[in-house]
């Protein structure tokens, strides 16, 4: 049988599974043509092991004549020469003939197969119409079929098929492998191995990794790796690399490049994890190298088979790889070169192979940094790789702190790059000036800067070049903004110089801008270092502990400019600067910038009357806000608008329209548009132009920033007005005779401000003295923070305070009536409390004050002769569930109203945890018997009553709501229903009860029996 060599090579099936054909060769040859053609077109179900979902696949097969040599020898597991299926073809429909010869032939075939352990076989019975007609009436045609099934396929009737119309049907192939399956199976083995399941053959993959040359995706089959795998010398990375290269080839063939990037990321993560799991020893940094190389290789492979537009549209798929590559730190250089091995021949002539890049990078630190720069850049904008590097070079070249030769080197680097850049794509790199030169002075001629239409206005710039060598500039441009508004004055041209204009001299001077660190200009150094020796002596024996040098003005030296990227400060933008096309531009060509000061003269246009403003210069004083709207995955549709809320500090200058640029993700200009702007006092609405996803819309707005002269005033006014912006929480603290007032000032604004001279005064003339306990005279209140201030209320001990103080905030003053003191004691005989063992909680309630007039009105008292008896309800609540209260946690107390009257309670509690546990909270309430008519509330139904009680409780005790609610219910004994009023409780007003033990803690040791912790106490 001829193999299918004449067919064109298809990537999907370089190696077709081998199917042997025995039996009637003439019959098969007649069917072969159509079979080989039809088989790949027929989708078939591929049932997969390990519970994965079945898939429909298209399969080709290599049909060969059956020979005994083809059967696999003992131990030979080679998949490529392995015959997967054996088919016996016959068109016998005569039972005599079957018995005489065909059956014997089949038996021989079967025994050969069985001898070699090949179990995948199939018998095909072909029925042709001609033969059927001859014999059809003698025997039913199923009988041959039944005979074969009886003889060979006991219970496996699907091992024998009948083809009645061979040109339409094709035999189904049995299971086979592809790379996904191998990959998944291998993963499963690795996981099992990691979990301790022995698979000895995996041991060879646990050998130390000594080669990390990354994925190789250039050739459809990596023969080198394949051989390594065959020889059993492949490392885990090799096997994974090989499998992935095969998957990649298939996916690219299927035109699914984005799946490659996705799978690549998965693969890289997975490999790193697997090596960790298998505890394979890897040289430090080697895995980073491998990941880095692999990322670049995948990206390059993808770039190679997609055009730019496709790449840009699908950058979401590549960004993950870029990010992963840029994460990798390639600082260890020494030992890594060895493991890179030699470059693959197919990439040797490509100047940009990842291998070359990395090898170069590993050879020198500078190169390494550069490569990383490039990679990080690729992450941002995959095509303007060099821009950032150039910008960095520019900064370096202009930095006076670097040695002269270094600066020359970087400067040269920029110049050579500019010469090399192929401008064919119209892709121009424009760098911000500030790194190269600084503008010192601007001089107008004539000095008034006003000329008649048609006359020339000259602008002379003093530029200080920071470059160490002369730089030939192709073009120097200054953009000029032109407006008609104020141009009416005699039709002249007035070139104002922005905020710093000095019209009478015609000269505008620009102070040095402070940049990062010391000033880059040696002639005008930045703030000098203020150094100070710091000696730290130990307090006891005056020996020197540490000595050092401290810099006192670090904040000045290390200050960086405001990072608000929206403000267009040119020196701040690292990315390439786009020249504002909308404005008029003054140009001078062929300028040579010498190191140091240079003078350049521009001639301003004066074709139309109006006001010209030197825009780039104005920009540096922050008059324009550049807004960039990055669309992300969203495409801007018609009618979409951007709404800006105007703040007080920044006023948008009114204009009805402004030009905008639509940029692609690579920074290329896609289109221009004019935005219409509608603004009201509070909101400015800007209609956005249509923009596709992953583009940005950039436009500039003119704003005036006011620095408010008294920024604090409005805030403070708000404070006193009590607007909701500033919550004021007052609380009144009390301890017997000492009263405190606490004021909480909460700053809910975005600004920080200082509070100075805090004072609290009262106006009623009650002769109260408020003593401030606040330490500082000035307090900083940061944004979203609170400041607490405390005053003590001074009063003579003989006098009670006035019952009520009417001020802006009113408090009711009441004497402390009761003190509640709690004590927790270990059970008798034990030294400490233990978890799970019972302890005693002793509560002591003491009356502190005489009966007051106000109290006499209270319904909670019962009269008993001259004495009054107060009925109170106590409750022990533990919100933090540290304690279990055994027995009743609440109850009634009645005690005489007399100073010093004391009532003691004792109950059992059980600590549930070990540690310093806070005491359970003990609460005291007034108990109002059901027969007394509530003073505040008339007859109400139970539900309402309950609500009012809980409301009161919430005011008094912030954390008790749920618990106390529950106990109100239990107090009534049943669900509150409409009916007679229930006994009620009412909280004491603030300060009437002093809880001595609030905040106390008791040490609880862990219990001896751990199982006691499990006891469920409810």
């Amino acid at each position, binding site marked *: 049988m001829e193999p299918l060599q004449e067919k064109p090579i298809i990537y999907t099936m370089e190696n077709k599974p081998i199917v042997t054909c025995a039996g009637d060769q003439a019959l098969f040859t007649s069917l072969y043509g159509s079979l080989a053609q039809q088989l790949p077109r027929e989708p078939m179900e591929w049932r997969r092991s390990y519970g994965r979902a079945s898939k429909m696949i298209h399969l080709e097969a290599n049909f060969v004549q059956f020979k005994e040599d083809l059967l696999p020898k003992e131990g030979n597991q080679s998949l490529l020469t392995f015959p997967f299926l054996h088919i016996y073809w016959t068109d016998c429909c005569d039972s005599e003939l079957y018995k005489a010869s065909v059956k014997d032939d089949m038996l021989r075939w079967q025994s050969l197969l069985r001898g070699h352990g090949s179990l995948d076989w199939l018998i095909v019975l072909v029925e042709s119409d001609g033969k059927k007609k001859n014999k059809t009436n003698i025997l039913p045609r199923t009988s041959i079929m039944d005979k074969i099934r009886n003889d060979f396929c006991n219970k496996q009737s699907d091992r024998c098929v009948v083809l009645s119309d061979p040109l339409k049907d094709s035999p189904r192939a049995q299971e086979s492998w592809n790379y996904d399956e191998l990959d998944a199976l291998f993963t499963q083995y690795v*996981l099992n191995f*990691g*979990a301790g399941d022995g698979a000895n053959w995996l041991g060879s993959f646990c050998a130390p990794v000594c080669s990390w040359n990354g994925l190789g995706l250039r050739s459809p089959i990596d023969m080198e790796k394949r051989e390594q795998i065959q020889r059993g010398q492949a490392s885990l990375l090799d096997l994974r690399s090989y499998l992935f290269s095969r998957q990649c080839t298939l996916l690219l063939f299927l035109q699914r490049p984005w799946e490659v990037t996705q799978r690549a*990321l*998965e693969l*890289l*993560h997975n490999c*790193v*994890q697997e090596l*960790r*799991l298998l505890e394979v020893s890897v040289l430090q940094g080697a895995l980073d190298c491998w990941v880095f190389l692999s990322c670049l290789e995948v990206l390059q492979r993808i770039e190679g088979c997609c055009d730019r537009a496709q790449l840009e549209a699908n950058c*979401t798929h590549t960004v993950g790889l870029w990010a*992963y590559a840029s*994460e990798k730190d390639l600082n260890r250089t020494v030992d890594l070169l060895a493991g890179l091995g030699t470059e693959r021949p197919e990439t040797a002539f490509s100047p940009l192979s990842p291998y070359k890049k990395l090898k170069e990078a590993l050879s020198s630190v500078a190169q390494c940094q550069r490569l990383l720069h490039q990679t990080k850049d690729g992450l941002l904008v995959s095509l303007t790789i060099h821009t950032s590097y150039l910008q960095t070079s520019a900064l370096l070249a202009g930095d006076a702190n670097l040695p002269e030769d270094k600066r020359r080197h970087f400067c040269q680097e920029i110049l050579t790059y500019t010469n090399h850049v192929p401008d064919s794509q119209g892709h121009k790199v424009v760098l911000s000036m500030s790194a190269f030169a600084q503008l010192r002075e601007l001089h107008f001629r004539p000095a008034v800067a006003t000329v008649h239409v048609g006359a020339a206005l000259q602008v002379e710039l003093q530029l200080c070049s920071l470059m160490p060598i002369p730089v030939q500039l192709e073009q120097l441009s200054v953009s000029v903004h032109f407006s008609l508004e104020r141009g009416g004055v005699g039709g002249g041209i007035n070139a104002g110089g922005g905020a710093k204009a000095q019209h009478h001299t015609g000269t505008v001077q620009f102070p040095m801008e402070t940049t990062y660190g010391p000033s880059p200009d040696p002639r005008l150094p930045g703030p000098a270092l203020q150094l100070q020796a710091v000696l730290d002596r130990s307090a006891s024996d005056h020996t020197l502990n540490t000595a050092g040098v401290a810099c006192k003005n670090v904040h000045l030296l290390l200050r960086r400019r405001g990072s608000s990227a929206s403000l267009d400060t040119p020196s701040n933008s690292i990315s390439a600067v786009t020249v504002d096309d909308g404005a008029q531009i003054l140009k001078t060509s062929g300028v040579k910038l010498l190191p140091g000061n240079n003078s350049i003269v521009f001639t301003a246009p004066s074709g139309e009357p109006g006001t010209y403003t030197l825009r780039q210069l104005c920009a540096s004083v922050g008059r324009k806000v550049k807004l960039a709207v990055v669309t992300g*995955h*969203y495409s801007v549709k018609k009618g979409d608008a951007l709404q800006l809320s105007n703040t007080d500090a920044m006023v948008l200058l009114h204009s009805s329209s402004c030009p905008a640029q639509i940029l692609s993700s690579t920074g290329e200009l896609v289109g221009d548009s004019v935005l219409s702007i509608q603004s009201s006092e509070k909101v400015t609405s800007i209609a956005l132009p249509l923009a596709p996803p992953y583009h940005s819309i950039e436009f500039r707005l003119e704003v005036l920033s006011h620095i408010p002269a008294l920024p604090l005033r409005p805030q403070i006014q708000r404070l006193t007005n009590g607007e909701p912006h500033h919550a004021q929480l007052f609380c009144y603290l009390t301890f017997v005779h000492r009263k405190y007032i606490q004021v909480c000032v909460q700053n809910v604004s975005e600004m920080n401000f200082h509070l100075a001279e805090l004072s609290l005064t009262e106006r009623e003339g009650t002769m109260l003295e408020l003593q401030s306990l606040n330490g500082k005279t000035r307090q900083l209140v940061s944004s979203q923070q609170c400041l607490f201030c405390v005053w003590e209320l001074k009063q003579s001990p003989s006098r009670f305070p006035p019952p009520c103080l009417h001020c802006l905030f009113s408090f009711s003053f009441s004497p402390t009536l009761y003190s509640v003191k709690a004590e927790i004691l270990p059970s008798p005989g034990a030294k400490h409390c233990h978890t799970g063992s019972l302890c005693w909680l002793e509560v002591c309630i003491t009356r502190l004050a005489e009966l007051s007039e106000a109290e006499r009105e209270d319904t909670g008292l019962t009269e008993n002769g001259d004495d009054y008896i107060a009925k109170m309800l106590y409750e022990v609540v533990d919100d933090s569930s540290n304690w279990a209260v055994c027995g009743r946690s609440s109850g009634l107390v009645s005690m005489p109203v007399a100073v010093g009257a004391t009532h003691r309670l004792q109950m059992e509690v059980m600590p549930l945890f070990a540690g310093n546990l806070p005491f359970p909270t003990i609460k005291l309430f007034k108990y109002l018997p059901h027969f007394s008519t509530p003073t505040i509330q008339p007859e109400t139904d139970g539900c309402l009553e309950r609500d009012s009680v809980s409301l009161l409780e919430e005011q008094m005790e912030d954390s008790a*709501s*749920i618990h106390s609610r529950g106990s109100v219910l239990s107090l009534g004994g049943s669900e509150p229903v409409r009916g007679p009023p229930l006994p009620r409780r009412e909280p004491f007003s603030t300060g009437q009860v002093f809880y001595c033990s609030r905040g106390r803690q008791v040490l609880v040791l862990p219990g001896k029996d751990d199982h006691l912790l499990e006891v469920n106490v409810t």
Partner: protein
Amino acid sequence: MAVCIAVIAKENYPLYIRSVPTENELKFHYTVHTSLDVVEEKISAVGKALVDQRELYLGLLYPTEDYKVYGYVTNSKVKFVIVVDSSNTSLRDNEIRSMFRKLHNSFTDVMCNPFYNPGDPIQSK
């Protein structure tokens, strides 16, 4: 076990974030924050393709070398994010799904609490 769990409000501010190694909390906050973009993309993709709207589980959002980030979005567009350690191979898709289901149930309980104001940070003891 998940190393970080986050509940993100419809408006993309965190209602609840808890990470188990507390010393590196900021990193997890960052990871969760980053994954929100992917959530947005997935949600908007669902809208376009009109795939099964009842499927709340978003699957793997954002794999990194050390962590896997899974997402889940409720019908009210509250997002759940679970970060698990990559080396933890016992957590398969099914386990993650059940974790999300439990989280969703707890979240529903919180929402049913009359003392909880929708939109407030969620407290957990």
